[in-house]
């Protein structure tokens, strides 16, 4: 068995043998259920009641938006998992054992990336399943069709799963760069959840949506809800593949920065 396969197995085992991963998975399910239900309620009430720029459930775009409404929150959990998988090694001093078994630090990070991406796909899949389970009753209740195999719904869901996995990699990259777990978590979640969406709104208000679409949340929207409005903004989103590349770019940039700084430091 190649050394790389062994390392990936070890990293998968590391995630599986502590409780954080399923606590985060429960978070994914609950948050997704909540946001999908909220989106469903808004759609049923209709724009004339809520003032939200969401069409009714007859509109395929609205149906898609309901199913993926939880993605924007689900990815935060994948982000947290990514941060934990790298900064946690320093917090618990397990980095010593890790590097004794695999002295090549870059290979360790690559193995972590594969493992985190795997769990990210799991989280994304959970978000998609919960999104459908909670969303379909709202769509049907509003007299719409479920459209589970049509109107770009499968594509939207698959790309949403991909987006969640990519966010796991972003977390890993930041966690590699910032060794202090608490700081890494606060920075990533704070930026991803609060600062960055606000920035997107701000940039959009300033009519520089062309810049805003390169922000992580908008790149995610490009993946998850193409041709729909994201966060109620009318930003012209990137094509889905460009959105994926932008997210991957953030992950690689943070990871590469970590590789030439934090990773080279002494483990004392």
């Amino acid at each position, binding site marked *: *068995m190649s*050394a790389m396969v*062994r*390392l990936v*197995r*070890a990293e998968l*085992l*590391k995630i599986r*043998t*502590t*409780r*954080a991963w399923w606590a985060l998975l429960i978070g994914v399910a609950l948050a997704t259920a909540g946001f999908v239900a909220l989106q469903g309620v808004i759609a049923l009430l209709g724009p004339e009641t809520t003032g939200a720029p969401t069409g009714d459930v007859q509109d395929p775009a609205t149906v898609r938006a309901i199913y993926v409404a939880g993605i924007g929150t689900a990815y935060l959990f994948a982000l947290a998992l990514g941060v934990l998988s790298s900064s*946690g090694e320093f917090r*618990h*001093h*397990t*980095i*010593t*054992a*890790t*590097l*004794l*078994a*695999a*002295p*090549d630090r870059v290979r360790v990070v690559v193995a972590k990336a594969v493992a985190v991406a795997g769990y990210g796909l799991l989280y994304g899949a959970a978000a998609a399943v919960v999104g459908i389970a909670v969303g379909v009753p709202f769509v049907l209740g509003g007299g719409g069709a479920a459209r589970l195999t049509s109107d770009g719904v499968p594509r939207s869901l698959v790309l949403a799963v991909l987006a969640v996995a990519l966010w796991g990699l972003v977390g890993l990259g930041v966690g590699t760069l910032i060794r202090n777990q608490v700081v890494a978590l606060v920075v990533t979640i704070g930026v991803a959840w609060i600062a960055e969406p606000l920035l997107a709104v701000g940039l959009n208000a300033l009519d520089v949506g062309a810049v805003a679409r390169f922000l992580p949340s908008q790149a995610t929207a490009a993946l998850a809800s193409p041709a729909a409005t994201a966060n109620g903004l009318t930003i012209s989103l990137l094509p889905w593949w460009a959105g994926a590349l932008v997210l991957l770019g953030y992950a690689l940039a943070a990871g590469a920065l970590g590789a030439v700084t934090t990773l*080279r430091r*002494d*483990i*004392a």
Partner: protein
Amino acid sequence: MTAPEEATVVVEHLCKSFGPITAVDDLSFTVRPGVVTGFLGPNGAGKTTTLRMLLGLVRPTSGRATIGGVPYAALRDPLRRVGAALEATGFHAGRTARDHLRVQAAAAGLPTARVDASLQQVGLEDAAGRRVGGFSLGMRQRLALAAALLGDPQVLVLDEPANGLDPAGIAWLRGFVRYFAAQGRTVLLSSHVLSEVQQTVDEVVVIAHGRLVRHAPLADLEGPPIVLVRTPQVEQLAVALAHAGLPAEPGGDGALLVTGAEPARVGEVAHRAGVVLHELARRPGDLEHVFLALTREGPR
């Protein structure tokens, strides 16, 4: 089996500075297979930094450390060559002992059977399924040792392995490392208390302020024998001993300590001087005293 030279640890002109502080200063020594080598020095002498440089965790400022001629980071399958227990804190509190070892075994491509064998070797099989967060320091030390033994290595590197072990644990550890070395394998274990390891080690490498103070067989480190002699005529005996060329220092409570003499010779001198003796005994050389003197004086 690995050839003996493949299990030889060589430290060559190793230096490490942390900013303005020199932690390890031109340190060189060789650790041979088949013997237990104690790596001794007071706290802060640079022992842990040296061991971490040997294991590729800390980058030397200059010099190098090799195992079988190869730096740790360049070893193929390092856990099968070198087992290291560096700190009893390197565990995720929420992971079980067995899972900690399973992760290590997976990374090293070792079968799960090795996990159970190692747990058994250190006597942790009953605690295997418990989370490490609930472990005592002694149990963590044992788990660290189990991790070191996973790959059935030829070289064992232990940093303060006796810390937190109870007397029974220390006796067990002593037996274990002696057995390990008797198989022709290499053991390097550090301690800041010589008396803790003096029954365990064959050779000592003593460092202070990051520099080598002494590398010698333990027997060579022991000072000359000391004879304790007790008498009601202390002053008379002291004069007689001085005439016989035996320097004596007061040992308190009517006793004198005579360095470098046999009890028979001291008794003879006392008899000739007509001095009454109440006690005459040989005391083993005080290793701890020697150790303290060595590390206080620094390199010579």
